[in-house]
């Protein structure tokens, strides 16, 4: 199945990735070859197979209990735009909106 450059742009937007025209072309080409490869999977009979069954080992659960985390300041300091105890991001809702 061929994938159009427009589709590549759409997926890139979904993934929040800026891609230039050259990247779009090379990605479309890459998608073509990889999707051809994926197509092989349709040769198999996959009826009646549960896709998400996990094996015998269960994920161990711990008690859901709040703990004090001493490294709060260090973590906040790694942000490029810190505002007190908050991470600062550009405005999301416009004033007119």
């Amino acid at each position, binding site marked *: 199945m061929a994938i159009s450059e427009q589709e590549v742009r759409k997926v890139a937007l979904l993934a929040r990735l800026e891609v230039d025209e050259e990247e779009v072309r090379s990605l479309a080409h*890459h998608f073509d070859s990889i999707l051809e490869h994926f197509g092989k999977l*349709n040769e198999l009979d996959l009826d009646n197979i549960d896709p998400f069954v996990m094996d015998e080992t269960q994920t161990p659960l711990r008690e859901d209990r709040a703990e004090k985390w001493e490294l709060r300041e*260090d973590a906040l300091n790694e942000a*490029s735009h810190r505002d007190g105890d908050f991470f600062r991001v550009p405005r999301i809702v416009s004033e007119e909106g």
Partner: protein
Amino acid sequence: MDFYRLSAHEICRKVKSGEITARETIESSLERINSLEKGLNALITRVDERALEKADRVDRMLSAGEDPGLLAGVPVVIKDNMCVQGIRTTCASRILGDWKPPFTATVVAELEKEGAIVLGKANMDEFAMGSSTEHSAFGPCSNPWDPDRVPGGSSGGSAASVAAGYAPISLGSDTGGSIRQPAAFCGTCGLKPTYGLVSRWGLVAFASSLDQIGPFARSIEDIALTLQVISKPDPRDSTCNPSKRPDYQSVLDQSSLKEKKVGIVKEFMDYDIDPEVREALEKTIEVARSEGAEIVELSLPVMVRYGLATYYIIAPAEASSNLARYDGVRYGISSEEEDLMDMYLKIRGDGFGEEVKRRILTGTYVLSSGYYDAYYLTAQKVRQIMTSEFKEAFSRVDTIIMPTAPTPAFRKGELLDDPIQMYMADVFTLPINMAGLPGLSLNAGYSRKGLPLGVQLIGPKWGEMQLLAAASVLERSFGPSLIAGGDQ
């Protein structure tokens, strides 16, 4: 004396007996790094001062009569996707900038608790996506056996560090072969443990249902020792098995493979692999036979034919989700864009390299509405068949022997423009991650050009004991891994 040649076992013994000091071992490693690093580029970040301080601490403990632990004074190199508090962690990406994690990964904390000394953070393919350590924002890493060739990947810097004698042990992570394939290319041992054996707390996630941390070393003895230290239960990683681990070092004196069944995969025997890799594989099977093993032919048709396609749907799907967190808000590079969407696009567009973008887009595509069933769900079903195939195989054999990679180390640039061919480098390793099994690459000799040739041993789930036992018997025949450029 050149202490860099010593194994972890030897260093620990000599440091504890007072024959050498921890400072001397670290100084020897740093000299080795100084003389080779310009050509190798195996390390992204060096922490010489910190290492010497830690060494002095080990020496002080010893003079005070205290026991520094199982790895007293042993230098180690850590792949740069595992966090060490206060040391820049980059994942070989631009997007994390100079991010310094506020905590230390469990595996690194366990190593340091036993007296091991971190020398630095190893080069890798960006976010562990790649098979050559060429996809690094810090430049490609070279193979210590031939600087024109790649060390494999994604844990190429960790493998090269051990092969070049920077350190006797290092840590890597393996999502589809990222420990075993570089181990084979660099002529070291490399173990990907069973999914859930080693805590991943503090490891930067790539594909969470596949990622596992494991050791590189130049001997099986050192692999077992390192595994003992890093494989403890950890409540901070909910996928980490809470059961007590066995004594991995106790199986190393096993005398033969008598009454063991060793499987070979029929379909791989007529697969297109390099003739010298094939010779190494056949020699390994012969050694196993002469050590008393019964060789059993197995058929794993789904894994062989569909493994690669299945992996390259599931791993990018998980990666696209895991890497959504890199948005420039809480850590990493920043932008002055005034619109949130523009900020995301810019930071992620500038910050991620080409291969990472390819995988994120592939993952986003296979998970997107309208394609999810056709790709992701189908791949999950095939993964179930592959897992059952292995389960059935391990009801008949104790260990499976197969190649680690189809070729020895390839040349730099050789596969860079052909992503699918690059993915093929992992065709023998990635099915093991999808089934959650342990796999180990062992050096089985050298090609006529002097390149290492690896073979891979696979065990059943939680079968590290039998894997290490088999590997130690084979190693007795092959000898421990050599140091590249070590003038042996």
